[in-house]
């Protein structure tokens, strides 16, 4: 193996990259755009849901209940329609997402010791809001009930359950904290697959691949020279995302730096291998790009990057194990959020290593064969 030849090849790749200055700029803009979009849109912390209150009771109870909803911070009461019929246009237009209907006689029923139903309407056309909105509403009503009981002094000697609810690992429950570590893996995969997949096809399309093979360069040298520049680019993107996450979104890092590094390195081999494989099987750049898109969408959807695996139907869940990103996410999120050690993450790390070895060696063998042809 000749270091000089590898260096020359790397140099050549960089010169080629420089020829399209827009490409480099875009490659550095992309992680920033993704950071903003995923950080602000996907990892949104649902609060201040616009709410309409239909208060048909007009009593101290109904006022207190409304105050409990407002005070929770999850609901912002913006409308007070006079009747339930007025709710329809408000929800239709999306002016409010949640409505609280307090029927007439609620206060009287409560003082008589009866159970008084109150209506909570959530906009089901938005599944995230309807799940979180109805959960919070139930919680507020339950708290309202027990506060009222305490006020009446009924608790004197009555038995009850005092549940201490504690959120571990991510006590603020801010979704950004799990989104950013995941984004690091996702961005590495996207950019490595997008650029890598073009790398070899481009040479083949322009006929320079044959020229390359009549030179004394060996397959391994060719591979190393070809992969290094892109791995460096991906690392730059990764650092950009990590810096943005830690300094702008203030994502806490609780874990072991080495776990993250090992996880990312293993995953990088998988991504490089995948990109290379696509590049080798595609005849044109257009096909390579189609193939990347074809692989990328299931990967994004099934890996649990955006949509929790747990919410998927049981039939689909095993499929997620076929996707390398699933394990990369497990490692990165485990290390960032839970501070998990090598031991706790042994399974996903081994899985990543397995994917890396299989895919990367398949890519190397395929390249060798192509060169031998």
């Amino acid at each position: 193996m000749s270091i000089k030849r590898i260096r020359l090849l790397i140099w050549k790749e960089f010169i080629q990259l420089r020829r399209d200055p827009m490409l480099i700029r875009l490659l550095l803009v992309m992680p920033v755009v993704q950071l903003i979009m995923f950080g602000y849109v996907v990892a949104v912390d649902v609060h201040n849901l616009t709410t309409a209150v239909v208060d048909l009771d007009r009593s101290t109870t109904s006022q207190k209940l409304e105050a409990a909803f407002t005070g929770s911070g999850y609901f912002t009461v913006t409308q007070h329609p006079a009747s339930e019929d007025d709710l329809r246009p408000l929800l239709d237009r999306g002016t409010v997402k949640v409505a609280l209907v307090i029927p007439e006689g609620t206060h009287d029923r409560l003082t008589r010791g009866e159970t008084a139903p109150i209506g909570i309407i959530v906009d089901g056309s938005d599944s995230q809001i309807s799940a979180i909105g109805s959960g919070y509403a139930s919680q507020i009503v339950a708290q309202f009930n027990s506060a009222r009981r305490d006020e009446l002094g009924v608790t004197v000697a009555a038995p009850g359950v005092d549940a201490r609810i504690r959120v571990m690992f991510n006590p603020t429950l801010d979704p950004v904290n799990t989104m950013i570590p995941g984004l690091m893996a996702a961005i590495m995969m996207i950019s490595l697959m997008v650029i890598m997949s073009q790398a070899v096809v481009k040479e083949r399309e322009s006929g320079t691949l044959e020229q390359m093979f009549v030179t004394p360069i060996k397959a391994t040298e060719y591979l190393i020279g070809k992969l290094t520049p892109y791995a460096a680019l991906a690392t730059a993107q990764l650092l950009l995302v990590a810096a943005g996450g830690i300094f702008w979104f203030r994502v806490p890092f609780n874990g072991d730096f080495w776990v993250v590094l090992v996880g990312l390195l293993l995953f990088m081999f998988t991504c490089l291998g995948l990109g290379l494989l696509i590049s080798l099987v595609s005849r044109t750049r257009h096909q390579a790009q189609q193939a990347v898109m074809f692989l990328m969408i299931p990967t994004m959807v099934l890996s649990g990057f955006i949509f929790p695996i747990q919410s998927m139907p049981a039939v689909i869940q095993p499929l997620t194990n076929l996707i390398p990103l699933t394990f990369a996410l497990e490692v990165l999120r485990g290390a960032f959020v839970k501070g998990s050690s090598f031991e706790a993450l042994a399974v996903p790390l081994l899985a990543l290593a397995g994917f890396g070895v299989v895919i990367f060696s398949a890519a190397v063998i395929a390249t060798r064969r192509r060169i031998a042809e």
Partner: protein
Amino acid sequence: MKAALVRIGAIVRKEFRHLGRDSRTLLAVVITPVIQLLLFAYAISFDVEHVPTIVIDFDQTTQSREYASLYSSSPFFNVVQHGSSMSDVDAAFDANSARVAIVIPSGFAKSLAAGEQAQVAVLIDGSEPNAAKVSQAYSVALNQLYSQELTRDWADAQGLDLSSLGMLEPRVRTWYNPERRSSDFLIPGLMIVIIAIVTVQQTAVTLVRERDLGTQEQLEISPMRRVELMVGKLLPWTLIAFLDVALITGLGRTIFEVPLRGNFWTLAVGAALFVFASLGMGLLISAIAPSLDTANIIAMLVAFLPSFLLSGFAFALDQIPTWLAWISYAFPARYMVTISRGVFLKGAGFTEVWPELALLSGYALVMIVISSVLYGRRSSR
């Protein structure tokens, strides 16, 4: 005029021949949307249900078991494991096999019998924030309801009259999508995302490719006029986009039984306008991008990401920062998702969604005008 039609027809035939030769691309534009639809519709969901839960019962009494059964009988929690020590919680959380742990300390039944507040610990894994939030809310509600029940039973046993112990009972109704099926919510928006990806990416790439291969010059010295070339180039993609719309709507209606409550023609007009807007965007990219690689990445930045993330198709837009919300208005997907969801789920017609339709047509017009000007300037160079 007739000659122009003949020339356009020739370009359309040429494009289809290219497509026919490139069976993989053809496969990609027809099969990919179907696969995406199935994948998204089955896999995407924010519904939080059956959260895996581990119960550690140090008390081992009838009462503690009764309390634990509250969780197993709730559709929200799914008790997957009964542990015997706290280290089981750590192990389960580390392996992600449970997200919630219920720890009932010994003496639980005794405290209850003594009329005291029995302590219980509920530990929630916060690394999946949405599930954690909903778990938190439901466990608060569940515990408070149970306490209330205990108090009632106790009062009955003591012969006390707790007439003041009335309580509110929340009755949650979900409008538009009563069964809370994610597919109803997602498919109308999904259609838009898929069309945006197919049209923008494909048009952006086909024109750049023509330039890359040098056939652009050949086309320019032919008697073709620029407008004819563009119309001829866009027509096949328009047809394919319409085919995709029909395919996705059909599959959504038949397989996923998504209701179509509103006016079909409103949807059709909206879809057509959206396709034009997307094609215009693709043209614009091809006019700007110097190479295929750049065209690809720009298409991803302005078509895939915004229509996926800033369209409101799966992620609520009223929760994002205002400046980002303004940016989202710069992409047509947002208007189209509103139209599509309005028509499918809320039974909207022209009267409800005309503002979006007007904006979309304005958008399509501006896009096509800008891109033809830029494209023309570029090719006349």
